[in-house]
């Protein structure tokens, strides 16, 4: 490890820890959110340093981007009547300094034990060689895509299911299923709207590109789906209300199609004597691409729906309050 690289890694490491602590002890929620988003972006730099571009893309887009948007969006409700984040340790603790010391020491000790365990970890060897050997039979050329959509496609399928479950769960939290048409039109802004007009088609194109790229290079359904969601969110911010104008039938199928099709494909070759999630080798490539296209659509739509529902949750309540 060369010196400048070591310096960069050290700096990133320090920054990560500082930002993480900052995100937890900042005095206002707004600062917490900002620190957390910066943390997510710094983390994607760390992924890049660790030769994990797929993860970097996913983290920057979902971990920092989407969740950051949701956090900032919820600030509207949380900071009503003061943005006091109340200190990390309760105000009523009599000896704040003492408890702070104890907690810091405890955290440090825990981290030390965990760090020791990592440092003493025997070399398991991993599955790199095995992945590489099986790559020609997987239908794709990029190892991460091969793992996600062929070797461990069962996990990936379940994970797309988690997104559907999370959408249902958010419906439960909001108290109704579906999206309400807002009573008044959105406040449109010429600058933001023209930006959205310019960016949205470009982003759709980028999503397609990432999807196609996933076959051989870093990229793939998740990253593409998130870019698609970003396009959706920008359009939503520009006041387009795409989701609200979709029919129930359309958004439900949109949310479910990735999961449903993946399942259908997983069982469709079983009458031919193949196993669950097993594809004929010659067709694996094209089939994976189709799965990825539909998964991208579903992921993009689901994440956009997260945001739209969130936005509606706050807005409808504040409207009720002012009435």
């Amino acid at each position, binding site marked *: 490890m060369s010196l400048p690289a070591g310096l960069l890694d050290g700096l990133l490491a320090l920054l990560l820890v500082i930002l993480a602590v900052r995100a937890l002890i900042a005095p206002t929620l707004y600062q917490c959110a900002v620190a957390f988003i910066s943390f997510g972006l710094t983390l994607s730099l760390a992924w890049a340093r660790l030769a994990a571009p797929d993860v970097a893309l996913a983290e920057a887009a979902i971990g920092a981007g989407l969740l950051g948007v949701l956090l900032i969006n919820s600030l509207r409700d949380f900071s009503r009547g003061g943005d006091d984040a109340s200190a990390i340790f309760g105000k009523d603790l009599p000896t704040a300094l003492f408890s702070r010391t104890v907690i810091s020491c405890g955290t440090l000790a825990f981290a030390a*034990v*965990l760090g*020791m*365990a*990592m440092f*003493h*970890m*025997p070399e*398991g*060897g*991993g*599955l790199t060689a*095995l*992945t590489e050997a*099986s790559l020609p039979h997987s239908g794709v050329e990029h190892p991460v895509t091969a793992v996600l959509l*062929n*070797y*461990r*496609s*069962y*996990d990936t399928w*379940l*994970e797309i*299911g*988690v997104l*559907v*479950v*999370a959408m*249902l*769960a958010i*419906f*439960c*939290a909001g*108290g*109704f*299923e*579906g999206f309400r048409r807002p009573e008044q039109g959105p406040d449109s802004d010429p600058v933001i709207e023209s930006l959205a007009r310019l960016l949205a088609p470009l982003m759709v194109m980028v999503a397609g590109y990432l999807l196609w790229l996933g076959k051989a290079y870093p990229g793939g359904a998740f990253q593409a789906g998130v870019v698609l969601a970003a396009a959706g969110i920008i359009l939503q911010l520009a006041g387009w209300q795409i989701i609200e104008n979709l029919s*129930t039938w359309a958004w*439900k*199928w949109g*949310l*479910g199609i990735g*999961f*449903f099709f993946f*399942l259908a494909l*997983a*069982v469709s070759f*079983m*009458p031919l*004597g*193949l*196993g*669950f*999630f*097993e594809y004929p080798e010659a067709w694996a490539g094209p089939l994976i691409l189709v799965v990825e296209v539909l998964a991208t659509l579903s992921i993009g739509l689901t994440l956009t729906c997260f945001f739209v529902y969130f936005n509606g949750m706050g807005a409808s309540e504040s409207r009720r309050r002012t009435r």
Partner: protein
Amino acid sequence: MSALWQADNLPVWLVVWPTFGAIVLFLLPARWRGMTGVSFALANGVLALVTVFFVMEVGVLRQEIGGWAPPLGIALALDGLSALFILMTAVVGGVVSVYAKIYFTQVVVDSARSSLFWPLWLFLWAGLHGLYLANDLFNLYVVIEVIGIAAVALAVLSGKTRAMIAGLRYLIAAVAGSLAYLMGVALLYGSTGVLDIDLMAERLEPGLTTRVAIALMLGGLLVKTAVFPLHFWLPPAHSSAEPPVSAILSALVLKGTFFVILRLWTELFGVSLTFMAGQMVGVLGACAVVWGSFQALRQERLKLVVAHSSVAQIGYLFLLFPLITVPATAVAGGFEWAPLAWSGAVYQVLAHGFAKAAFFLAIGVLVMATGNDHKASMLNMVGRLPMTTFAIGLAGVSLIGLPPSGGFLAKWMLLSAIISSGQWWWVPFVLVGSLMTAGYVFMILRLAFAPSQHEAELKSVPRGLQVCALLLAVGAILIAFPAEWVIDLLEGTSTFGEVVRAGAPVNSGEVGP
């Protein structure tokens, strides 16, 4: 090679069918969901029966997904233990589904909200099947998360603020727990380079990393199983949910993570466990028995009594671990108590599952009739809602462990195992726990038989709901009878009746400098 309907594909259908149901129910409009949901649930029951007969005939079944053998691919494993859990899920789940259908169509007005129950419940069911079949540590994480998110979503279904707060607490505990589990998985993957449980068991060596990993995984799973003192999220979450949801959460969801702990403890953790580790988990269980029962005695609201009682009953399950974890120096052979301890714990899972679900469903009926679940509303219930009171009584008998009931068999087997293992110090906890359980159950029943002067008019409750509660309560008693059959089924589990030789290096030749 396996054709579509061939029996090898049974594990696949166990996952595919409820998932298919979930997605269909999601796509269907709200008014169709109830009937369709019940049909899917009943079909699940048929599938579970097939599974059980299959396992009885054939034994352990492994299936590789995607045609990739582990360590690259994921394998599913179906054995006697999973079959038994699948059967319990099917029976409890089936009855609860029927109850939910009646409850949500006749009682709850807000159909937009309550119809969300069906897709979530089927997703949860699919997740449970995935959990019972999983043989891969990361796959376990994913299904645990499916179960966790779906369970919390169901818990907040009622939309009450109290439920929301309890749900958020539950969710944060669950997420933190599963991340701790995942941290342990990461450490183990780094040490062995595989995720498949069987392969990892071959490669895992004792050491600091393994120990920390096991501690993290256990800690995470113990939070999710609500073991004392990590049970803080359970009482509010279980007591504020809708009755069918409470039944699902306490009868099935808690048992899911217990299943994972049992499986990992016996199949994977053996390398690095010590006698003390077993004892410590046992102490947590014993404390849970006493503390949970004590809290249950103090509660004024029936749902809280029952929720705290779950903490105690879960505690009994953890008495299994000290019994099956013996020092490596102990004499070989002669661990005749191990099958008994195993059967006792599994019986406790079944008995608690049936009895607790029955309890929650019966209290649901009671709340519907009287409008609240305060203890006082039980007054003179025996004459007014005889069927429901009878259900509560039967479920209570099983919880206390009075013969003849599933709970009696569970506690009797656990006690015998404790005594023959020589770990007599667990005996008082079991007995005190039973006494205290008797305390709160009889307190409720005494009120039910007590006459009251001015009683409010009861609202009418659909008969179906009362029948559902009674069915489960009768089930809690009846499961005592096919005990031999259950133990036969359990013998189809690779680790059934085995003890973990704590501190014994598995590959003694290869370990060491």
